[in-house]
């Protein structure tokens, strides 16, 4: 049996994408700071990009590259708006703790 350390295939890239996505999910679920949560969302988007590009390489289809580019643009827009919301919330409340941002809950 060949060692997995000697050769890398597409599956390794896909598994790495899955690991990265799982870490992003864990960050969103575990942390309370909004900034860390947004960074974890970025991690998940990057994991999706890695998977898309791996499949593009597998199938020789450049459409995956276009998709990844669009994902990056949407991620940039999401970060811009999200950080603006964070700044606006911090201006009024002096904290960005998601467990205490429960205005719509009560």
């Amino acid at each position: 049996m060949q060692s997995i350390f000697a050769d890398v295939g597409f599956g390794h890239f896909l598994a790495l994408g899955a690991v990265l996505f799982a870490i992003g999910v864990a960050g969103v679920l575990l942390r309370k700071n909004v900034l860390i949560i947004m960074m974890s969302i970025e991690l998940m988007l990057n994991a999706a990009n890695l998977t898309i590009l791996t499949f593009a390489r597998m199938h020789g289809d450049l459409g995956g590259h276009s998709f990844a580019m669009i994902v990056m643009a949407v991620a940039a827009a999401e970060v811009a708006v999200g950080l603006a919301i964070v700044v606006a919330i911090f201006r009024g409340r002096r904290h960005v703790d998601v467990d205490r941002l429960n205005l719509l809950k009560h």
Partner: protein
Amino acid sequence: MSARTVTTLLIQLALGGLVAFALAGRAQAQPQQPVDAEARAQAQAQPIDPPRSSTPAGKGVSKRDQVQSPSAGAPATAAAQRTKGGLALAFWAFAALTVLGSVFVITRKNLVTAVMGMVGTFFALSALYMLLYAHFLAIIQMLVYAGAIMVLFVFVIMILNKPEDEPYAQSGKFGKGVAGVAMAYLLFRIGQVLIDVPSHLSAAQNAAPAKTAAGYDWGSTAAVGMNLFTDYLFPFEAVSLCLLIAVVGAIAIARPLKDDPSEPADAPGPAGAGGH
């Protein structure tokens, strides 16, 4: 120098060292490039002395291809083995850097440390995109993520510089149990994928991607641009509109309100001219 600064510096040094290590592995793999590309075609017919001069096709073959070329003949075996080792080393080093950086993001209490881990993750991902022949996307990844988005994060952290008292969310025993079981299952399945993946792919999959119909290298700026501006023109225009809306929305949200009582008097906002 506070302990936090020292920790951040140490982390940056470790990440930089990993990158240097991986780059050394790649540089070691570089000189073998033309040999293996030719040897794969001539392994059976001419076992000795593969020509050093590389044809245009040989130039297009990059290291990613050599990782998975199982059909290399006897003379190229040693070189291919070394190349393979170097490339596999590059993949594993960058994959380790990616995972390490993302773990840093979700575990560090210091926000700046988390951002630094994120920068390492993005650089390593960019290198992995290169291994997948996505040259243009790799550069864009560096410019957009490691450049623009990280700067945005650092700016916001600078604005709200407030230490957390309790960084992790509370969860009961039930939630922890469910999360543990789900995590164990996920890790098990990922390990399965990693072990079961075929290390020898078909020849068609091993080959470097063919040039596009217009004659551009696969994954290059020109090829991606042709694809984006012909087949995916509408999504491209839609995403440009999305960016415009995001810019306007971000300014509208972050602008301080008129006569906002919660606005501190001694902090003139960046958009103060428009807001007052």
